[in-house]
């Protein structure tokens, strides 16, 4: 069973604890530049969206890497970096459609989510349910049920309106 990080931005409160625990776990420091997850915020709208690597199957970062430093780890279903090959050219940073690869200016290396080797701390600390680490094949189920419920309600409302 492969697991994936599922983000429900409607549940995100924007507290950035995910950023903090990510940075401390990987680097021993808290620094929003040095974490592998970031929350994009629109304060005046109350919109908060955690942005993190989607571990793409056909990853643009892997395709773009000129030194084959990025590769897939099929066991955990993630994209990893071989830092022996990485030349720090930042092509992957630009190639990622989600902007999920950060450049750490202190360590001078690209950083992106490594799923904490199978126990992602962001999901462990997030009690709101905005970040969950669940079976990839069932990741859509709760969303599917919610959509189904809305569909049912709207059909019922339409039927009542006609009557």
């Amino acid at each position, binding site marked *: 069973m492969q697991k994936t990080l599922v983000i429900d931005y*409607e*549940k995100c*409160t*924007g*507290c*950035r*604890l995910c950023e*903090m*625990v990510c940075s*401390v*776990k990987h*680097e*021993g*420091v*808290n*620094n*929003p*530049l*040095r974490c592998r997850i970031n929350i994009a915020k629109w*304060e*005046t*709208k*109350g919109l*908060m969206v955690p942005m993190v690597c989607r571990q793409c199957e056909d990853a643009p970062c892997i395709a773009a890497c000129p030194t084959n430093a990025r590769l897939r780890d099929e066991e955990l279903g993630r994209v990893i970096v071989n830092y022996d090959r990485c030349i720090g050219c930042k092509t992957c940073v630009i190639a990622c459609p989600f902007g999920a690869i950060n450049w750490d*200016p*202190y360590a001078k290396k690209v950083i992106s989510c490594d799923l904490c080797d199978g126990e992602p*701390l962001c999901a*462990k*600390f*997030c*009690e*709101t349910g905005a970040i969950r680490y669940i079976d990839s094949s069932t990741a859509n189920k709760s969303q599917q049920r919610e959509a189904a419920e809305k569909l049912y309600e709207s059909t019922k409302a339409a039927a009542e309106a006609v009557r």
Partner: protein
Amino acid sequence: MALNRKIAYIDLTTGKIETKPISVKMRKIFIGGRGLDAYLMYNHIKPGVDALSPDNVAFISAGLLVGTLASASARTHVAAKSPLTGYFGSTNMGGFFAPELRFAGFDHLVIKGKAAKPSYLWIHNGEIEIRNASKIWGKGVRDTQEALREELGDKDIKALTIGIAGEKMVRYANVMTEIKNAGGRTGMGAVLGSKNLKAIAVRGTMDIKIAHPMEALEYDKKIISQVTAAKVSQEQGRLGTLFIWGATNSQGLVRARNFQLNQLEESDAIEPEEFEKHSFGMTGCYGCQVHCRGKYIIPDGEYKGIYDEGPEYTSIGAWAAEPDCRDITTVLAANHLVNDYGMDTIETGSMIAWAMELYEKGILTEKDTGGLDLSFGNKEAVIEMIHRIARRQGLGDILAEGPLRAAKKIGKDSIKYQIHVKGMSNLQSDERPTPSLALGVATASRGSDHLRSRPAIDLYHLPEPVLRQIYSQPAPYEGPLTSEYTDYEGKSWMVFWQEQCYMAVDSLGICKYHTIFLGPNFPNFQEWSKLIYYNTGLEMSPLDIWDAARRATTLERMFNIREGLTRKDDWLVDRYFDEPTKLGIPIIRGRTIDRDKLHKMIDEYYGFGGWDENGVPKPESLKKMGIDKEPTHLL
């Protein structure tokens, strides 16, 4: 590391900026945040200065654990001599400003003098610039922050700002950050306004090194679970502080019609669950899993479609119960207006309710109000008065002066209807049935206040052994403790203990909802000792933290004494003693505070602090705490 953040001295008159390290020794003596600010205030503010003159000094700080893995450690503290009370002015606020200040390399800012023209500070990675704010002067709180992000070209900038109320020096103007993180009470926004300082924009990307990262992660998770497992946290996370209003109004522990009633009857339309219908989720401060702020869009009326956050316990108190209005839109709109004007909810609401009672009694007439019908229940008048106060128009200009100055200007016997302590309005709660809460309000260092020493868990009727478990450490206590909240016995110690507890969290930068405020099983001194060690490497025992808090609360007291405060200022208005509560559950009806018993509690409370019968710290107590030589000017 978390201990290497600096202090900066900024002189707005001369433009001179100096930075200094903060020694570990000073950390151990005063911790940081509000604790170290108490030291700085006592050292930098000359006695008797006019609070709105360039001689006043403003202090802005982040607590010691801000930006570390200490749950809900997001607090910013702002202090100065208060233009409202003339005594110790202070405010403690959540959000994201304090962590950003630390990422930018600073823990404390000392702001002196007055800028020649509207200015703002731009602080980034160890650098501080004073910049021209003429383009943003006149803007509301949220537009100011957006304009700063635009001008400086960084969407992640956090700013602490004043709104129009601060510019107009309304004596209870707030400092604000983000949409609704409000640094209220005591008028810190007016102080920044008087200095021509519109905002402080910060952005930082400097490491905060965690001393023992793996232990800190594990311990933080434990603390978070300890807090979020409690039902009160879950209610906070669903309804915010509104849930407290629901719980206390049903008993008769709130204020309505300017303290004439202790309950808002027929309140179905404004119960917390009604607000929940308009909320589309919750938001919270940095690193906090309680997330106590609702996100809402104003559903109708003049402000339809505007996004804001909250409302809070005080919003229902100020915009519904006190003016006797039962309208959700009014509460949401008023909450939005004070947030954007940058003005204190408690004080603004109390001043309007007071004016309404004066209007009812015929002390104010339509001539004074500029034709406005200030009858209780007139929701349009509430909204209109918020505008007039913030912009200092007509009667609003008088009410903007705060309880004592406004009563002096209006004259007659208007002061009789003011519900204040030390010239600051009381929270929209009624303490007549609860002597412990009344003592806290009477003696709080920043004037009438519920966040400086209130033993809120006294309302839970906890068994005496549970109380003893909480209140007999880290400092030993063997005196009486009583479960009944209408009792006077043992309450003075609870207030004294809570005062040190709150000083400690305010110095560490942790939110009060993560200590013994609403929940009896929440973290306190024992847990903080570990949090400090894992995150900063500093070794402080629970008793060391207690002692540091004692020094800081004592220095706040000495500041007040130096400004002329006496025992008679630690007192409630006559209505607490002479008018019994009329409504509520049987145990709460017919209650007043007993003058003699309150005096006895005050004696005991002074005694615990090592103060004499006039409330002045005794020389030997100061010596014992190591603060007998203050001011020592070490920072």
